[in-house]
């Protein structure tokens, strides 16, 4: 697992209060990890801060799963 994935997983675990092993590649924030729509906004805010990047709204909407987030952030860095 990459460094980005570890850091993203840590944010997701802390923010959503889920077990680390539930945060898998295809885990959907909303369907699998119990996030509501505001949680997804807050996760994106947390990613922006952690990685010092800007995630535009249209891109944020495509980030549905843990894997989506890792892929987007790796591409943005």
């Amino acid at each position, binding site marked *: 697992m990459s460094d980005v994935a570890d850091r993203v997983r840590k944010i997701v675990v802390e923010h959503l209060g889920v077990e680390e092993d539930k945060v898998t590649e295809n885990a959907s924030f909303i369907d699998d990890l119990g996030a*509501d729509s*505001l949680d997804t*906004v*807050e996760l994106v*805010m947390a990613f922006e801060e952690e990685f010092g990047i800007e995630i535009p709204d249209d891109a944020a909407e495509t980030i549905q799963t843990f894997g989506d987030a890792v892929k987007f952030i790796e591409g943005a860095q």
Partner: protein
Amino acid sequence: MFDLTGKAALVTGASGGIGAAIARALHGAGATIGLSGTREAPLQALAEELGERAHVLPCNLSDPAAVAALPKQAVEAMGAVDILVNNAGITRDNIFMRMSDDEWNDVLEVNLNAAVRLCRGVTRGMMKARWGRIVNVSSVVGVMGNPGQTNYAAAKAGMIGFGKSLAYEVASRGITVNAVAPGFITSPMTDKLSEEQQGAILTQVPLARMGSAEEVAAAVLYLASPEAGYVTGSVLHVNGGMAML
């Protein structure tokens, strides 16, 4: 009661009578205040009167770019925006049959769209802080209507519907969104009315007098306070009983 020590509040329309009274009330409760308005001189004078914990943040609310920048400037000046009071408002009265698109759009832009943009600009910080207070200064006209003010009434009613919907969305983050709806308040706007007009108005007010800016400010102070934490999506009417809602 109503201790705002350590909180930062952004007040629009602070160069006007009601806005200045709101700023004084919040500042008096211990808040740091960002005074926004179009006219810089009255804002500077008010900042000097308040002394420390007062920042002048001029902004033309009819300019969307300036409105988008205002929350950032407020955070730079005060460190955060915990309380937003959307108080600024203009009127462009005309009977509907003669109302131009410009008269309609100017009022909607300043009274409603600017308030919405400012809410967008401050909610991020409030969500992170898990605490926030948004108080929209609406009007009895937004609830009862008023001839010659279709534009103003639409904007003020819009604030209420917008605020209630936003209140639902952000409630889980400790942010409340409420409105204060003043009735006839002594201000430069009502001073322009003739004595006859004022007399006619007062026949509709059970308390038989105009309200003061301080009486509106007290309602805003309450809704901005920690004590109002269980109040959201509400409209607090300050109108001498002219509309008992």
